[in-house]
């Protein structure tokens, strides 16, 4: 499960098959998360990583103070996947201190009601350490390095994590080497560009690992060029209404961004892309666009004092750290909107705005 109830509701309504009704995500699902800079993409994937490395349940053992060492046990559910998470931190920005803070708060919140840290084992620190040991962070410095790292993953898994399945593969972000690769492509312009493209090698290596190990794959992607409105806008334009808080990057009615990466699956492009190696690439299951919710502009201000007074309502919205997500599921074509909030201690889900 994503543990964002609004998102899980949409996914359950959007796909025909789930191996288990307790999980909205299937083995091998590929989720692309696209948005402008600082739109919450990395925090969104922190949330996925937390879910992955958290235990499903833990048996805590207490030792009474009596000499006969009578032990009490208590089982507490954390609802995690209890699997390893692999992070390809191409941006070099994975903030482990922030991630640790979120992890510790999540564990503490669950334990607070029933747990006395002084009397039970494992301790909170032991739990945090065991969770973090299931998180493995790689920092490739080029597309070739990323592709080679993906090729090496099966060997790494067998050697370093033989008893723990890899539940999640995160690439944050898949756009990091975009401009360098594109410039390299200019130097090799011709019929063999696609097969020579470093991104092609990344995608084929990713697909090999996806087929062999079946992790849920989450890719963060830059939102660079807004999709422009046309006379034949698809029904997604109905997501915008006059009172909407949905920002529209292009200034029109479409809250989405173009797929600038090439070669890369672009299931929502019209006309569809003709990719020679499409069958060798991982297919996108869900595409999520993240946007900061709109806030009222300050205008007609005579003094700074006026601006600060007018900012009260705006500041209230800003302080919530609200992010709007628009999810499109490829198989069914369903589109849904959800909101989550990034707080100091946690990432909170809000309501599903609509799904259809």
């Amino acid at each position, binding site marked *: 499960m994503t543990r964002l109830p609004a998102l899980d509701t949409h996914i359950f309504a959007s796909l025909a098959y789930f191996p288990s009704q307790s999980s909205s995500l299937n083995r091998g699902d590929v989720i692309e998360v696209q948005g*402008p*800079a*600082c739109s919450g993409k*990395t925090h969104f994937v922190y949330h996925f990583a937390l879910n992955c490395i958290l235990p499903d349940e833990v048996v805590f053992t207490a030792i009474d103070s009596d000499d006969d060492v009578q032990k009490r046990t208590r089982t507490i559910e954390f609802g995690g996947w209890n699997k390893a998470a692999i992070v*390809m931190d191409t941006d*070099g*920005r*994975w903030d*482990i*201190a922030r*991630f640790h803070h979120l992890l510790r708060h999540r564990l503490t919140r669950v334990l607070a009601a029933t747990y006395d840290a002084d009397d039970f084992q494992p301790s909170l620190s032991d739990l945090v*350490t065991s*969770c*973090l*040991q*299931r*998180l*493995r*962070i*790689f*920092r490739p*410095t080029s597309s*070739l*390095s*990323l*592709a*080679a790292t993906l090729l*090496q993953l099966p*060997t790494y898994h067998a050697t370093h994590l033989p008893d723990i399945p890899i539940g999640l593969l995160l690439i944050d972000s898949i*756009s*990091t*080497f*975009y*401009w*360098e690769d*594109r*410039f390299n*492509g*200019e130097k090799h312009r011709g019929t063999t560009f696609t097969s*020579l493209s*470093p991104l*092609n*090698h990344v995608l*084929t290596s990713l697909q090999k690992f996806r087929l062999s190990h079946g992790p849920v794959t989450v890719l963060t992607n*830059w939102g*660079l060029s807004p999709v422009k409105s046309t006379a034949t806008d698809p029904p997604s334009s109905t997501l915008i209404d006059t009172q909407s808080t949905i920002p529209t990057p292009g*200034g029109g009615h479409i809250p989405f961004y173009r797929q600038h990466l090439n070669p890369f699956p672009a299931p929502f492009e019209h006309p569809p892309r003709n990719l020679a190696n499409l069958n060798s690439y991982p297919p996108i299951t869900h595409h999520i666009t993240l946007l900061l919710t709109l*806030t009222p*502009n*300050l*205008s007609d*201000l*005579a*003094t*700074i004092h006026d*601006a600060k007074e007018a*900012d009260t309502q705006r500041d209230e919205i*800003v*302080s919530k*750290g609200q992010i709007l997500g628009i999810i499109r599921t490829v198989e069914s074509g369903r589109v849904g909107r959800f909101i989550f909030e990034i707080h100091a201690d946690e990432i909170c889900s809000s309501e599903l705005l609509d799904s259809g």
Partner: protein
Amino acid sequence: MRLRTILSTTPKPVIDALSECGINTPTDFLFGANLETMFQRMSPGTASYEELLEARQRLINALAADVVTGDQMLASQQGVQASLSHWLTGIRELDEILESMPFGVMELSGAKGAGKTALALHIAASCLAHDSNTVVHWIDTSGDFSAERAANQARIFQQERKLVASPGSPVALPSSLRAVLDRLQVSLAFDVEAAHDILESLRLTLNSEERPHARVLVIDAITPLLGPHLNAVSAQGHAIMTTFMRHLRAFAQTYHTLIVVTNNATASQTSNPASAFASTTLKPALGPSFAFLTDATLWLARASDVLSPSSNTGNRSAHPPATNDDENVHIAEVFRSRSSISRKWWTFQIAEGLIRIQL
């Protein structure tokens, strides 16, 4: 990069056999034909299949990224945080951002006269005043750096620190202003290659561990280094930009340096949605990709430009300030931040080109 270079321990006959089949680069070997096809193309007796397999695995190991577990990364980060010097600029909101982002790349963007250089000087001066063992490096890309202005900002900061020091904490002033300014090292770089060379030189110096720690590095401004290369025809300019910024980010992480880059402004087609103010019709230069290459973007503007809706070009003489109280006021907006809440804004004072904590 050639295969021979990476696979230096692989037997030469194997490399020669691959080369005879046209396999000379890592991409050729890993993502060209499969191993069976390569082996069939080779002359008999030149290399065994097992040797090819071993060479391929050795290549993957050489190219693959290093890995760290989450707990190892945390321990390392906590060690860094404990040893890192933190200082106060005296501007509360800026101090909160710097506390959440003690090192990384921060962009200060805005129109001419918005206060970019002034704020960068203030950050540098406050850092130098705090720790007598630290060095601030300033890369001047336009030849406009003023030693006199830097000295005045440092003097004002020291004077005002007596006013804003935390209750109960000692105010330790450096022995002299000259001692402070000796630790502000200025270099000139008029193109990106020169900036790369300066960074490389700094790396060598810092790696020798004989010099004080480089806590802050300022590039004022980064627009002239990267802007001239950008165009809509070729991706080369953007590739240069992303490569340079990646080197900056790696520098910041390796040496725990706060890198402050000032960036000019360019016209926005509509009111800038990232700004709290409807009157903002400018945006940071260097295109939408640049926003992904920094850790935070602060947008600076004169209060007079914001408060007078028609004043969107930064032309101060055409639009006088709304009131005398706001004459010296500038506005800083957090357009984006990876480590703190975005879209907040606050005010600060600049008088005669210098940041004043208290006026």
